[in-house]
């Protein structure tokens, strides 16, 4: 292993020095000479018809350069959606227009109506208050089921209804599934809500548009997880700017959790406006603005049913879900409740028949899209809550019921009835590990101790599977994706042997700058400090699809491996020439190229110098230089899995739930940096516990956001969380990528919510509240108390 840590070393994150010492270069830190400021006047009603906009007073305000409304964007495209779902009747989804600024109607609180550009931010805000918008309020569409009723008010007048699509999966299985339910020995049914969430990354969104008239060159600095995707969507589909004239830069962006994947209207608006006003235009979202303009997550209403035979084997599963799209289709929104949700409904179980129905619905709310886990948390939550409920109804141990129905190690690769093929896994092993690290055997004693303090203790378990390493391009193309999902890397070796790796993956908290360097260091056998990872700028990185879906190491890392292998192959040719040996006899070990069976060798720097100073070099057969690019397109998803266990105490007087301990036994395949993996899991657990107990994005009956600030939207804080016990020693390597890795970024947020809720139900049922079979998230003290006393 290289002295600074190759694969498997818990190398400290090199990026943390700048983050922890205030040296991060966040998007809002970017200020361009001559820049002006944009402020968006946003709708304060959920649904309304715009009768007119009077800008005359506002345009006369001090410092105002220009005020743009929908009319100014008439010649450009709307915000595109990146995925087209085909429904169970063979119809493509209803896809509404999504203008950059509200055109004719406003469709959610926060919908941008006008863009005010002024010399200062405060001047832009002042002028916004002088813009007179004449709006006739319309009845807001909020409840998804009511939205689909005959004659319901429509969010989009030019669509036939508020239904985006009615998706059935696998439609051909529906009759067989229904038949299995008809002859089931036992059916367990659960109705639940997967609560709407706000991502709340640390840095709110920022966009700075710049235009150089002498070269027709646009630059957009933006808080994005995927700058190339923004360049493609915004350049080609919105503003009509060819890619070579548009540079998109996403520096340190202060986290994303999915909410910074999408192309947002503000990005297009500042880029467009920069040319119009001839000055760089900057917009920084306030936190309040983020609540009503960043895409939200989750928001499913589901009925799920499990059929079992008389020996407690799962025979069929059936779900009926309403998925909230919000007012417009965000970039990946249609794919989340379908291909990232329905395909995971088998979970870890060998249930032979599954049918998933999802109705995606437009409402007068902020658009909903992927949020850490994206569809897979929704699938896992309903399935793992349901299995737990079934175990209680049948009077069997929830652990045993799961074990009995697990896909067993001899069944891999395992074709699920919902299209995907799991390559590897060992769910008994992760379950065993969880029971060990959570000291499950000692639970009864701990429960008795809690009881002496008047507290109700419960243990909850969940086992999850997710599909990561997104995704095979040809497959997702068939499923409606309007993009490929490969990843890219350029490995540029410098003359003296140091290396710059240009990756299409973006890092916004994942530690790529450290772990990607470890991969290259391991392969070549040089110190990781010799290697820099460069990302986030379309002007110097190859076309990449960005970071989400726990894909970066599995897909982006694999591209780096491919490019590095090309480098090594070429370097071996150079070494063979220098050593006057056959290329086949050259071995690379610890940064040295040696002729097998001899003491002849040349070190890494000797070869790299020869590549760039090719005096003694096989120029007739080999180009000088040492720089290679590779694209990697995965052949399958990866399938991380794991067992999570949560212990809670419920205060019966107040209903307050305290998480006492949380244990996670994950199988992520091979691990590059165990410390980073543990950090990713811990962060995911914090978010999952936040969803389970605290976070609630709620609208009132008028479509006003009730939880529009941290005063009402409860983020998890350190004292809401226990110390975590995290283990990733159960390893079944991925069989189809070169690193054998599966991805770890979302697992914590996927597996934890059902474990927490199961623990609360366990605590209440053990204490005699047998009637409490479910509590919707967030499981707030008020909800627990109401359930206990209901």
């Amino acid at each position, binding site marked *: 292993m290289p002295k600074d840590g190759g694969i498997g070393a818990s190398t400290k994150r090199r990026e943390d020095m700048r983050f922890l010492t205030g040296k991060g270069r966040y998007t809002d830190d970017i200020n361009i000479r001559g820049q002006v400021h944009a402020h968006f006047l946003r709708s304060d009603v959920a649904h309304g018809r715009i009768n007119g906009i009077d800008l005359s007073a506002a345009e006369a305000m001090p410092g105002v350069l220009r005020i743009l409304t929908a009319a100014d964007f008439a010649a450009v495209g709307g915000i595109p959606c990146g995925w087209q779902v085909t429904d169970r009747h063979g119809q493509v989804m209803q896809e509404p227009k999504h203008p950059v600024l509200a055109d004719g109607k406003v469709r959610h609180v926060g919908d941008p109506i006008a863009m005010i550009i002024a010399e200062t931010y405060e001047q832009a805000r002042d002028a916004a208050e002088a813009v007179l918008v004449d709006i006739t309020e319309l009845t807001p569409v909020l409840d998804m089921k009511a939205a689909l009723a005959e004659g319901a008010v429509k969010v989009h007048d030019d669509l036939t209804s508020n239904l985006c699509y009615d998706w059935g999966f696998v439609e051909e299985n529906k009759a067989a599934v229904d038949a299995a339910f008809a002859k089931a020995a036992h059916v367990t049914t659960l109705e639940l809500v997967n609560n709407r969430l706000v991502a709340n990354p640390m840095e709110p969104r920022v966009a700075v548009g710049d235009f150089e008239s002498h070269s027709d060159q646009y630059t957009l600095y933006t808080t994005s997880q995927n700058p190339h995707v923004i360049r493609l969507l915004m350049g080609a589909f919105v503003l009509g700017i060819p890619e070579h004239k548009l540079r998109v830069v996403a520096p340190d962006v202060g986290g994303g959790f999915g909410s910074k994947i999408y192309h947002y209207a503000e990005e297009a608006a500042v880029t467009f406006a920069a040319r119009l006003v001839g000055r760089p235009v900057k917009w920084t979202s306030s936190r309040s603005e983020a609540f009503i303009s960043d895409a939200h997550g989750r928001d499913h209403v589901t009925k799920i049913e499990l059929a079992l035979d008389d020996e407690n084997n799962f025979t069929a599963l059936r779900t009926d879900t309403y998925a909230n799209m919000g007012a417009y289709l965000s970039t990946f929104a249609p794919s989340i409740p379908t291909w990232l949700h329905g395909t995971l409904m088998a979970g870890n179980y060998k249930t032979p028949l599954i049918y998933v129905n999802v109705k995606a619905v437009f409402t007068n709310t902020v658009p909903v899209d992927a949020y850490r886990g994206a569809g897979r948390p929704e699938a896992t939550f309903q399935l793992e809550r349901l299995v737990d409920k079934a175990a209680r109804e049948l009077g069997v141990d929830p652990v045993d019921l799961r074990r009995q129905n697990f896909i067993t190690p001899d069944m891999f690769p395992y074709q699920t009835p919902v299209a995907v093929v799991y390559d590897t896994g060992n769910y008994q092993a992760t379950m065993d590990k969880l029971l060990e690290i959570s000291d499950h055997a000692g639970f009864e004693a701990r429960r008795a101790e809690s009881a002496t303090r008047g507290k109700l203790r419960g243990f909850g378990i969940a086992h999850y599977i997710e599909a990561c390493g997104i995704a095979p391009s040809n497959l997702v193309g068939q499923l409606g994706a309007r993009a490929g999902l490969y990843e890219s890397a350029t490995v540029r070796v410098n003359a003296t042997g140091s290396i710059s790796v240009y990756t299409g993956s973006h890092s916004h908290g994942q530690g790529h700058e450290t772990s990607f360097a470890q991969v290259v260091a391991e392969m070549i056998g040089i110190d990781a400090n010799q290697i820099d990872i460069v990302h986030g700028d379309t002007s110097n990185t190859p076309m990449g699809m960005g970071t989400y879906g726990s894909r970066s190491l599995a897909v982006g890392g694999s591209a780096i491996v491919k490019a590095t292998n090309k480098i090594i192959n070429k370097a071996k040719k150079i070494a063979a020439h220098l050593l006057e040996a056959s290329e086949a006899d050259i071995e690379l070990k610890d940064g040295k190229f040696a002729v097998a069976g001899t003491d002849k060798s040349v070190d890494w720097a000797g070869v790299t110098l020869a590549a760039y100073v090719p005096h003694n070099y096989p120029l007739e057969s080999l180009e000088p230089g040492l720089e290679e690019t590779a694209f990697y397109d995965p052949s399958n998803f990866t399938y991380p899995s794991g067992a999570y266990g949560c212990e809670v105490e419920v205060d019966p007087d107040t209903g307050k739930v305290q998480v006492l301990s949380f244990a996670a036994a994950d199988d992520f395949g091979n691990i590059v940096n165990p410390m980073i993996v543990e950090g990713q899991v811990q962060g995911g657990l914090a978010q999952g516990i936040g969803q389970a107990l605290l976070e609630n994005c709620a609208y009132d009956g008028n479509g006003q956001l009730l*939880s529009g600030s941290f005063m009402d939207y409860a983020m998890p804080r350190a004292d809401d969380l226990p110390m975590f016990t995290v283990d990733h020693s159960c390893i079944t390597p991925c069989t189809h990528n070169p690193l054998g890795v599966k991805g770890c970024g979302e697992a914590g947020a996927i597996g934890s919510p059902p474990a927490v809720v199961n623990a609360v139900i366990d605590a209440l049922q053990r204490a005699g509240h047998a009637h409490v079979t479910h509590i919707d998230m967030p499981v707030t003290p008020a909800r627990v108390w109401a359930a206990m006393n209901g």
Partner: protein
Amino acid sequence: MYDFELVKPASLAEAVKAMGDDGAQALAGGQTLVPTMKQRLASPERLVSLTGIAELQGVSAAEGRVTIGAATCHADVAAKAAAHYPGLAALAGQIGDPAVRNRGTIGGSLANNDPSACYPAAALGSGATIVTNTRDIAADDYFQGMFATALEEGEIITAVRFPVPQAAGYVKFAQPASRFALVGVFVARFADGVRVAVTGASNNGVFRWAEAEAALSGDFSADAVTGLTVPADDMIADLHGSAEYRAHLVGVMTARAVRAAG
């Protein structure tokens, strides 16, 4: 935030004079006012800062009373009142977070009278006297509903005088997001009886719970309030809890406050 003028008087007299100007608004710690201004929900033309006035600062104790200057921050009360009135100091030490406790002031909190703030429970539960530049106001007369007080236009709180009880306790059940009191109960036992003040729960702001006071005056124990209930009719109902839940928590927190008082 809109433009405004900031006046920093060095004495109470100067502050009173400045408050006489049109559009003047007293600024104490600014923990509510400044965020409200940043959201453009308040637009005072002139802020009169009270925190630089020496006579409004400090904690003193004499003759069974603790007097706290109106511009004293919560952290100072938590530290300096502990020896004289530990129940009050403990309450001050639970307000907000360290940043809030080092900026927010007792006078600012009482002038604002947020229905979920902690200090109104201490003032009403202690039977404190709110001292202003013009008069003394008994706590029982001071609190007049959510964000409403007996203060006249331009009147400035200068100090709060607390009679020190034999025992006192404050327990709050935190609203999960803001960590303001979803329900907070302050209990104080005096030689002549017990006072119980409830914050966070009622649409009418802080209130005294007479039934619990009567029960606890006879038997100062958590058991004494078991089974007592407050009607849910006037309780706040919101995202974080129903009126019934808040009414229930009043009983639970009162019992816990009695235990905390010891």
